[in-house]
Structure formats: structure tokens, C-alpha cells
């Protein structure tokens, strides 16, 4: 890579060990992709996780004097004090999480602890060059907003945030942003859970690739796009997609492929999405907990959950959780949604991800969720996946049939 004199200085450690470690990582990535140079970024999102790998790198940077040069938001870890009051968390795990959160504060990150920073705390504009990690964030920012980011890891995004730069490769180059697979959507896509299933199916089909989805005639809603992004970038590695006419960079299929529309296409039918759903189901009957908010629930989803729980009582044998950001919870509280959910026996928890060690109390239990991503990481004995309405219904009855 050709580095400027300033960049060489950072790499040689003249500005401290923290930024040097960050630059070493960026140069390793740049070299691997044959990037010619670094380019400036305007913001970053580090998918912090409160786990050992995360701790090692953020402390290396923070203790080495590095500070974020551009706005850099953070992903959920978990609300340590809140969980400590409820159940036993292994003290070494809690210590890792506490140190991670301290180190992100020290490095000057935005302490959003949210996986949807692009909605509230750290919003890119069309055409911005950014470094956003997190499953839903990368494809959302590239496709729905039209900023450019690669499929970053927490550490490469944080490194970019403290150096203010990223290697020029991948999706920062226009030619690499063209569609690779044509998918004709014949499925009716009636709501946000259908987009979850669509994401699961698309990810499984493409692996690494940029799908162009034709045939969608109704404008997708924000939450539908979030779910689609989160799932397709978990079951596969989808950094970008096109829904011509609705996502910003291409109005037509032709434009999405930059001219070369492929002959072959994958057809997505209702039957295909139904089979995708059936493949996920491994349990039924009695459930011990319901976990929603992976990705974090938006205000609209909080309203929907509150509406479904209004006047209901969650079954005594079921714990009911919704994860969201501190920002969204504050507003949902003001709107009365949190009170409704709590009156029904549910809890709204902030700063927390479903994939964190704070939930070990449920590891031998059977749960239910509207997020296949929650089921994927096998933190629990078994997880039933279904839409929000089914989850609420099962929570009230204590079982899913």
C-alpha cells in the first residue's frame, strides 16, 4: 500500500501505541485486498460485544492513547447492574464486560450500546464513506442509505474510527457495488417476519454476494429492511443488496447490475419461505422464555408489542424480554409502551444483546423469539422462531402449538 507521510508516522508508532495498533490492522487488511491507499471516513460503528477478543483490542487502543477521530458508536454489551440484581452472572464474564465498556468510554466512542445506530445515534448520509460493522448495519448503510462501507469487524471499524481512515477496497469502489445474483420475489411478503424469512433464505442462497431483488412492488418498511439485513448477513455474508425502485443506488435491475443482467435467477416463492421457516422449527409445547429485540426493537415495534399485550397477563412460567436501546426505551416509556409491557409481566432491557453471557440462566431452557439470529448461536437448549404475534400468544398461554 502507498501510505502518506502522516500515515507512515502513525504506523511507526510516532503518535502512540494505540493508533499504531489500529494502523497495523488497517494495513494488514489493505495489503490482503491489494488496496492502493487509505481513504478518509466520516463515521464508524464498532460492533462491540463485551467478550475477550473485543476487550483485548479496545484496551490495546485505549490504553495506548488512541481516541476516536470521527463519531464512532458502539453495539450492545449488557446492562451489568440490572442483570446482577436478577440472577447470577459469572463474575469473570461481568468483569470482562465492565472493562470493555470502560475502555470504549476511554477511547472516546459514542456509548450507544445499540445495534441500530444508523436510526438514531450515528446516521450516515448518502455517499458518505464510513466503516460500519454489525450484521444489519453494514447492508442497511450500503443499500438503504447509500453510504459506502465494507463488511467490517468491530476491531477494523474501531481502528478506522481512531485513525479516521480505511483502506480503499471492496464496496468503496463503484465497480464492486454491482449486483451478483438476480432474485425474483414472487412471495407475497405480508409483514416484517416475512422479511426475516426472506433474509434467512437469501443469505443461505448467496453466501457472499450482492442480490438484486426484483418483483417487490410494495415499499418495504424500515423494520422489514432491518430484519432482512440482519438475517441475510447472518445466514450468509450479505454486505449489500438492491430492491430497485426502493433502495437508493439503482432505479432498475439493469442499473443494479451496472449493465450485465445475468441470465439465471433464483425464484423466491411463498412456499420457499414456508419451507425456510419449517426448517428452523425444532421445538413446540411448553416454553420458558420469550426474547425479542434481535436486532433491537424500534419504537414502532415497542408500540406493536404494547398493543398486543394490552390487558393481557404473561403466563407465570414464562419470562418475557424485549431488548432495545436506551434512547428508544426512554421514548417508549414516555409513550406509555413500557408500562403496558411491564403491567403484562414483561421487561424492557437496554444496552443488551441476546448473544451475551448474562442469559446463561436460560441455557437449559426452551425459548421463543421472532429472530432466527437469536436461535443460531445456540446459547439456549431450544428456540422456537415465529412472528411477534405468535410470540406474545405463546407467552400468555405458556406454550406454543
Amino acid at each position: 500500500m502507498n501510505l502518506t507521510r502522516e500515515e507512515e508516522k502513525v504506523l511507526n508508532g510516532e503518535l502512540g501505541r494505540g493508533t499504531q495498533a489500529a494502523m497495523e490492522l488497517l494495513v494488514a487488511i489493505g495489503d490482503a485486498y491489494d488496496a492502493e491507499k487509505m481513504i478518509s471516513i466520516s463515521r464508524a460503528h464498532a460492533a462491540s460485544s463485551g467478550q475477550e477478543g473485543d476487550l483485548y483490542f479496545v484496551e490495546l487502543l485505549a490504553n495506548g492513547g488512541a481516541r476516536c477521530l470521527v463519531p464512532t458508536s458502539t453495539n450492545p454489551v449488557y446492562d451489568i447492574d440490572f442483570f446482577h440484581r436478577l440472577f447470577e452472572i459469572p463474575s469473570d464474564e461481568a468483569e470482562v464486560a465492565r472493562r470493555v465498556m470502560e475502555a470504549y468510554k476511554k477511547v472516546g466512542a459514542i456509548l450507544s450500546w445499540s445495534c441500530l445506530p444508523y436510526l438514531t445515534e450515528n446516521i450516515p448520509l448518502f455517499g458518505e464513506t464510513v466503516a460500519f460493522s454489525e450484521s444489519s448495519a453494514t447492508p442497511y448503510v450500503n443499500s438503504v442509505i447509500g453510504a459506502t462501507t465494507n463488511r467490517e469487524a468491530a476491531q477494523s471499524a474501531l481502528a478506522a474510527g481512531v485513525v479516521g481512515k480505511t483502506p480503499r477496497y471492496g464496496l468503496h469502489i463503484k465497480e464492486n457495488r454491482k449486483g451478483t445474483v438476480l432474485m425474483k420475489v414472487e412471495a407475497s411478503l405480508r409483514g416484517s417476519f416475512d422479511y426475516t424469512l426472506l433474509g434467512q433464505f437469501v443469505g443461505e442462497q448467496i453466501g457472499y454476494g450482492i442480490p438484486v431483488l426484483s418483483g417487490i412492488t410494495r415499499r418495504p418498511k424500515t423494520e422489514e429492511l432491518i430484519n432482512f439485513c440482519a438475517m441475510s448477513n447472518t445466514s450468509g455474508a450479505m454486505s449489500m443488496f438492491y430492491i430497485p425502485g426502493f433502495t437508493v443506488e439503482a432505479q432498475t435491475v439493469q442499473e443494479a447490475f451496472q449493465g450485465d443482467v445475468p441470465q439465471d435467477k433464483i425464484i423466491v416463492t411463498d412456499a420457499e419461505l414456508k419451507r425456510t421457516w419449517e426448517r428452523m422449527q425444532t421445538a413446540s409445547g411448553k416454553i420458558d422464555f420469550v426474547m425479542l429485540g434481535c436486532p433491537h426493537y424500534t419504537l414502532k415495534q415497542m408500540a406493536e408489542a404494547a398493543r398486543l399485550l394490552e390487558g393481557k397477563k404473561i403466563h407465570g412460567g414464562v419470562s418475557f424480554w424485549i431488548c432495545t436501546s436506551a434512547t428508544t426505551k426512554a421514548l417508549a416509556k414516555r409513550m406509555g409502551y413500557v408500562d403496558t409491557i411491564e403491567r403484562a409481566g414483561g421487561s424492557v432491557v437496554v444496552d443488551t444483546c441476546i448473544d451475551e453471557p448474562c442469559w446463561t440462566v436460560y441455557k437449559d431452557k426452551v425459548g421463543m423469539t421472532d429472530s432466527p439470529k437469536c436461535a443460531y448461536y445456540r446459547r439456549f437448549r431450544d428456540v422456537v422462531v415465529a412472528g411477534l404475534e405468535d410470540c406474545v400468544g405463546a407467552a400468555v398461554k405458556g406454550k406454543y402449538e
Partner: protein
Amino acid sequence: MKDEETRLKCHKIVGGCGEGKALVSHEPICFYLTDPRTGIVREKTHELAGKNLANKVLVFPSGKASSVVQIDGLFKLKLNNLAPKAMIVKDVETVLIVSAVLAKVPLVNRLEEDPFEAIHTGDTVKVDAEKGIVTVRKNFS
């Protein structure tokens, strides 16, 4: 019988040098779905299910799954001295590069021959990422 040794050029992604028995996977790998206390792959449907990747030279197409878990998975193996000695991949992706940098596992790609033809599980493989050389020794005995 005499062992046969082949030297192949490769492209360094993460530096260092590692030697061990080869373990070949034709499917992408998520390190989070291995047991951090043993190195055994616990993803039931994976072709390496039940196999141990600790201290092996791992040959695989690419990484998979979300960045958070991939990095933590490899890092935990490293903390327990159970990480692969080196990794040879076909496709690089940012998350795998970061995982390898953090866990200090040598990582190379662009082997001058198809790695799945040149290397088989059980071969003794030395990866010298610094020199860009992979040495493969077939064990016939």
C-alpha cells in the same frame, strides 16, 4: 516409503510461521461453533463436526457468521492454546483477517496450486507467511 515434499508460493495476509498436521474443510468455518475448551467443532451439520482443529494447519475456503462471534471464537481458542497453527484460505474477508491478527495466527491465501488439491488432511504442512512459502509433506509411511 519416502516422504514427498512440495514447496508452494502463497500470499501473506497475517505474518508468522506455523507448522502442524493439515485439517481440510471444504466448507467455511465459524470458530464460535467450536468448543473453546477442546477445539472440537460442534456445528452438527459441518463436515468437520467432531473433529479437533487445535494446533492444526487449517485449510478452508473462508470464514462465516457475524464478526463478533467469529473473532471471539478464534480468540478464545488462542487463550486456551488451542488455535490452529496457521490458516490457508481461498477467499479473504475482513472479519477473518481481523480474527487472525488478534489471535496472532498466520494466515495466507493465493496458494499457487488449488489448496484442496495440494493439501489433504493428515499431511504435515509448514506455513511461512513471512517468506510466502507453504511446505507440504505427504506422510506415506
